[in-house]
């Protein structure tokens, strides 16, 4: 079965074509799903891509959360469907309450556009099932508001439940506990700031993101944990 991945397109998204290209390159099929649609029927997995959904006005993700498609995304996630939010998509999923915590301005107050190293901390998630714990992956980041924060109880819970999916090896943005990505309780919803879709081909300087998107394709249509 070739996994069909729906890539949610908001006004202001700008990484949706990167996601389509990467998923196609890795053997999946991907299609855009307009944010005004009320259904994600036919999709085996969903990607909420990077960009500036609804201009990032008010706060990143604050308005995207109310897009008509988000009800379908919530239902899909509640039914165990794999959902990955990348960068702005991570911000959208936290605002939508599908992932805990929030993303605030980088500690250095700089927009960061560079390639960093993240370490895979758990492999029982929709995005890391084919990776090995401790894997260090070179993946680009492109964000101004990637500084992950949450209250102490949430952080303790994330640690206790092994829900920190990837950590920065050298924290670029001030994120609490070096967190680069987290998952929900069901481990089928994952959000991360780095862009694996931009590290899926040697020509892009790194193929390290491929294992993550391959994991997503593998988890499409099958239970995660």
């Amino acid at each position, binding site marked *: 079965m070739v996994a069909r991945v729906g890539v949610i397109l908001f006004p202001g998204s700008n990484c949706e074509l990167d996601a389509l290209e990467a998923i196609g390159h890795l053997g999946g099929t991907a299609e855009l799903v307009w944010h005004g649609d009320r259904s994600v029927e036919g999709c085996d997995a969903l990607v909420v891509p990077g960009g500036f959904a609804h201009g990032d006005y008010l706060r990143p993700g604050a308005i995207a959360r109310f897009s008509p498609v988000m009800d379908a995304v919530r239902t899909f996630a509640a039914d165990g469907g794999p959902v990955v939010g990348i960068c702005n998509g991570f911000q959208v999923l936290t605002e939508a309450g599908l992932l805990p915590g929030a993303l*605030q301005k980088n500690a250095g107050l700089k927009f960061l556009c560079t390639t960093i190293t993240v370490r895979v901390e758990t492999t029982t998630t929709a995005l890391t099932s084919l990776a090995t714990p401790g894997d260090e992956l070179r993946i680009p980041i492109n964000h101004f508001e990637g500084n992950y*924060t949450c209250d102490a109880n949430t952080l303790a819970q994330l640690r206790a439940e092994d829900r920190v999916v990837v950590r920065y090896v050298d924290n670029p943005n001030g994120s609490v506990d070096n967190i680069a990505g987290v998952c929900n309780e069901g481990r089928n919803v994952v959000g991360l700031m780095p862009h694996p879709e931009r590290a899926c081909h040697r020509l892009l300087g790194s193929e390290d993101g491929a294992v993550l998107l391959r994991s997503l394709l593998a988890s499409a249509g099958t239970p995660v944990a």
Partner: protein
Amino acid sequence: MLFSVLVETRLRPGIADPQGATIERSLPTLGFEGIRGVRVGKAIRFELEAPDETTALAQATAVTQQFLINPVIEAADVSVAVTESV
């Protein structure tokens, strides 16, 4: 009745405020001494039609909590004032 609403948002205590910290660090360079505790927030103003002040405040507070702030990192003060009586 028409009310004018002012929502002042701020980062919750304990949430790092890199904008505030950067402003505070730059102040001595500009010759402003003795300023500390700089925190940056937002002010959002709008008008609201409601039958009375209690209802106006309740509605403004609801929209603030559900949309205008992210309660994980932000808090807000909401105030309403009559701008026009019908």
